[in-house]
């Protein structure tokens, strides 16, 4: 019987990672000791990771440990979704669109969000960021390529 579900799951994940590493690294030459190739370290580390996973997994049947935490969906989906949306939008649409979009999408994650406040805040933050990053630090961030060309 599994006594430490958290460890069992973590161990399982490590084993999976090890397998992916071995699979992905299989095509790389390991070389010899005198001339270690590109594949040796990825292979060795994948195997080690898998072994750690096995020990952790096996241990989960012997010693009692923590239960699995509940995962929430709303927080990660909104926050990470906001980052991904920003990544997709920044080059074609620029900061003027990607900025407020990221703020508003992220704000969906929180029940306390007040919408008028967030919308105003999104616009203010975007203007602030354009000033700070583009003009203050002169980083080449696209502002509105469809409008002003960059």
């Amino acid at each position, binding site marked *: 019987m599994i006594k430490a579900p958290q460890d069992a799951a973590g161990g399982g994940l490590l084993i999976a990672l090890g397998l992916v590493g071995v699979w992905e690294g299989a095509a790389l030459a390991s070389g010899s000791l005198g001339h270690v190739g590109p594949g040796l370290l*990825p292979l060795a580390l994948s195997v080690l990771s898998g072994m750690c996973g096995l020990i*952790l997994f096996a241990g989960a049947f012997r010693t009692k440990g923590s239960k699995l935490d509940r995962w929430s969906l709303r927080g990660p989906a909104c926050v*990470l979704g906001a*980052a991904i949306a920003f990544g997709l939008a920044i080059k074609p649409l620029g*900061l003027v669109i990607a900025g407020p979009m990221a703020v508003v999408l*992220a704000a969906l994650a929180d029940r*306390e969000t007040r919408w008028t406040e967030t919308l105003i805040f999104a616009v203010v933050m975007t203007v602030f*960021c354009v000033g700070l990053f583009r003009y203050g*630090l002169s980083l080449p961030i696209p502002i509105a390529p469809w409008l002003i060309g960059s």
Partner: protein
Amino acid sequence: MGDLFANLGLGFSTAVSLENLAFCFLGCLVGTLVGVLPGVGPIATIAMLLPLTFNLDPTGALIMLAGIYYGAQYGGSTGAILLHIPGEVTSVVTTLDGHQMARNGQAGIALGIAALGSFAAGTMATIVVAVLAVPLTRLALLFGAAEYFALMVLGLTLAVVLVRGSVLKALSVTIVGLLLSTVGTDLETGEERLTLGLSALTGGIHFVVLAMGIFGLAEVLRNLENPEHRDAVKAHIGRLLPSLDDLKRCIGPILRGTGLGAALGILPGNGAVLGPFASYSLEKKLARDPSRFGRGAIEGVAGPESANNAGAQTAFIPLLTLGIPPNAVMALMVGAMTIHGIIPGPLVMTKSPTLFWGMIASMWIGNLMLLIINLPLIGLWVRLLRVPYRLMFPSILLFCCIGIYSTNNEASNVIMMAIFGLVGYGLQKFGFEPAPLLLGFILGGLLEEKLRQALILSRGSFWTFVQRPVSGGLLLLAVVVFILAVLPAIRESRKKALIE
């Protein structure tokens, strides 16, 4: 000795000219700013400012760029303490106890001790640079591939000391960190490794992408999940500056941190990254009650922050005396120098003494300025924590996205950061701590490079690591540290097993 004073005199007379003081101040201010902003690092900033320095006098330009560099180190700890976001490799350790202190309502004290410790360390390290730069350089040349490899192995054993939980889990994530560091093109053949066929991964994983994801975003997700938790931070803010008692407790850690950081910073192979980790581990070992570490121990902030800043200063030694840049920022400084017609190397000291000593003097002045800039800012930073979290976290996210995008203008990095945010969230859920993962990731590249070099040089014999005295000694130390760290854990788990 008389020479030294004459040289320092020359340096200070150069550095305190109104113009150079202004450059120094400007550099420190910009540095602090980019250090605090998550994601935007000194590399992107210095690269963008390079053309602006074209028409400046080279000494002033370099003083300003150096100010950005160590200003960013200062600012990086602010982000680590307040937001749990390590903006720099060297501020990873500060997230452990610094952010915990902020949660306990001691943000001001943590920021204060970080600033004071950094200043003390910066002052001492500047003296080290001035007095010992030349002899230490020769020492640094003793470090060949095998020695670096041994040093990295020693560094990896620190992962086990770093964490509070299970040793096995710490080891596992360290290995995962090492594995992640191998992703991307191979340093020798340029073949793609473990990229899953994604072109975004061919260049490897960027440190800030990983750090923002598994530290910064994961922290946001954790706070969103526990609304009581995040409001607790705001309930009480407490003292703004460390008390005399706090300072007394930190003298030891600051001195030891400075020593470790300064020594490791001299190594041209970017040994400085190890400084804060080593200092943290040392303080935890020396502490009467190690269990306080990870729960907001002030020594866990003072030591690593001193080590970090001392290392940032002594890292100039290989640059100025050997002409060899120990890290990417220093490589940019080389570029800045060459653009100005100064080629860094053993001759800078004799050929451009005003530049050399002016820069050294400006380091101390810069540290003083950083203290002056940062102490009053503490009040502001702490007040920033009062911003309602519903507005705070979208801003953190926006800053992270812009910062990550601007590190090398890659939109795919922003998406990758989101994925690592999920990984960081998962690590929490499965009871893994993220710090050893970053340690493994930071050391991985150098570890592999040096391992491969050492084995080629020895024509495939592992004996080279044991036979060479420095490398053999370091490996022995690594074994001792590891055993010392693991023994109590083994004893405990046996006890547990017996009870059951």
